[in-house]
């Protein structure tokens, strides 16, 4: 989604009514963020909207990017937000071999998640994995955070193209198209 370096476009202040609506939408989409929404977007602070190429809007607080959105699609957290609140999003894990592909902006492929080093929601997994990656399968269209084998922090966030149940069955194909990964144009964006 952000393969190239991006130059930020016009920046505008978000009206307080719109700011309230965005807070509501975020909590609705990510209920686990509810207790922290006042730290992420304090009521009294001014949220800004920065226009990015290809009709992507980025919401920022000062020079901190928070969430981005393509047209009217889901609000997706910037990885800096994911790193701060890692337990508040549905997450998957790729195996070590897939990391360098993901970091170079390649499409996330199902085998990186279904291999031994990968993790998908699985009720039969050991306790620790169930705690972290859940039991219930995720539907296509869900915003998920992607962690990596042997790493503490997530490296990718985006919308699932294929449901996790299907991934387990077919074990091939694109799992997520686009998305925001470490080191991409959005990550490197300088908001001064």
């Amino acid at each position, binding site marked *: 989604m952000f393969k190239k370096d991006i130059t930020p476009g016009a920046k505008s202040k978000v009206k307080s009514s719109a700011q309230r609506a965005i807070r509501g939408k975020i909590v609705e989409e990510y209920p686990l963020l509810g*207790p*922290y929404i006042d*730290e992420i977007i304090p009521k009294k602070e001014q949220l800004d909207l920065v226009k990015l190429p290809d009709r992507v809007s980025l919401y920022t607080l000062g020079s901190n990017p928070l969430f981005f959105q393509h047209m009217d699609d889901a609000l997706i957290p910037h990885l800096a937000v994911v*790193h*701060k*609140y*890692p*337990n508040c999003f549905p997450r998957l894990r790729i*195996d*070590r*071999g897939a*990391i*360098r592909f993901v*970091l170079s902006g390649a499409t996330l492929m199902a085998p990186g998640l279904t291999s031994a*080093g990968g993790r998908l929601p699985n009720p039969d997994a050991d306790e620790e994995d169930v705690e972290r990656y859940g039991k219930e399968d995720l539907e296509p269209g869900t915003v998920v955070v992607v962690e990596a*084998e*042997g*790493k*503490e*922090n997530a*490296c990718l966030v985006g919308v699932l193209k294929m449901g996790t149940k299907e991934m387990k069955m077919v074990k091939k194909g694109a799992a997520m198209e686009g998305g925001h990964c*470490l*080191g991409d144009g959005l*990550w*490197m964006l300088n908001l001064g």
Partner: protein
Amino acid sequence: MTEVTTGAGGPESHAKHVVYCGVCSLPPEYCEFGGTVKKCEEWLKVQHPDMHERLYSEDVINANMSSLTIEAQKRADKDAQKKAAKAVAAEARALEIKASSKILIKRVERNKRKYVTAVQGLEAHGLDLKKVAKDFGKKFATGSSVTKLPGGGEEITVQGDLSDDIYDYLVETYEDIPEENIECIEDKKKKGGG
């Protein structure tokens, strides 16, 4: 929520505090996938020795290697070499651009015997035009501002004929800029002075 620790966001904050690499900007555990691993490692060793010990110990490196097949390992090595070569080339290019970038100090006649001095090319030497314009204004007690060039880019416009003074000031203040890269020219048809 057991993993969430109080971070840098203040005493009230529940945000986890994550260290980011001062060289490549990623969490240091991901530095190995970029082209600047050597520099990243040096930075981490100085800034966060405990983390360095954890991430760059021999055990960790061996464990990482053994989780890949030999063929995948080879490909990853090749990839890493390519990335490192790219990073080195990019750095060399940046240096070359700096070394060859000229700064032009232009005397421009505005009205009869009224001049402004335009300074172009400072940004290629990593200078912040707004800041330098302010410095010029203070140093020479005159109006000085950043203006857009018709062909794109920006220059600093200083009120008054200050070519020589600006030349001397730049040479004295910015030792990194080679003197031969700074040139004074006149914008009018008639040649002279400068």
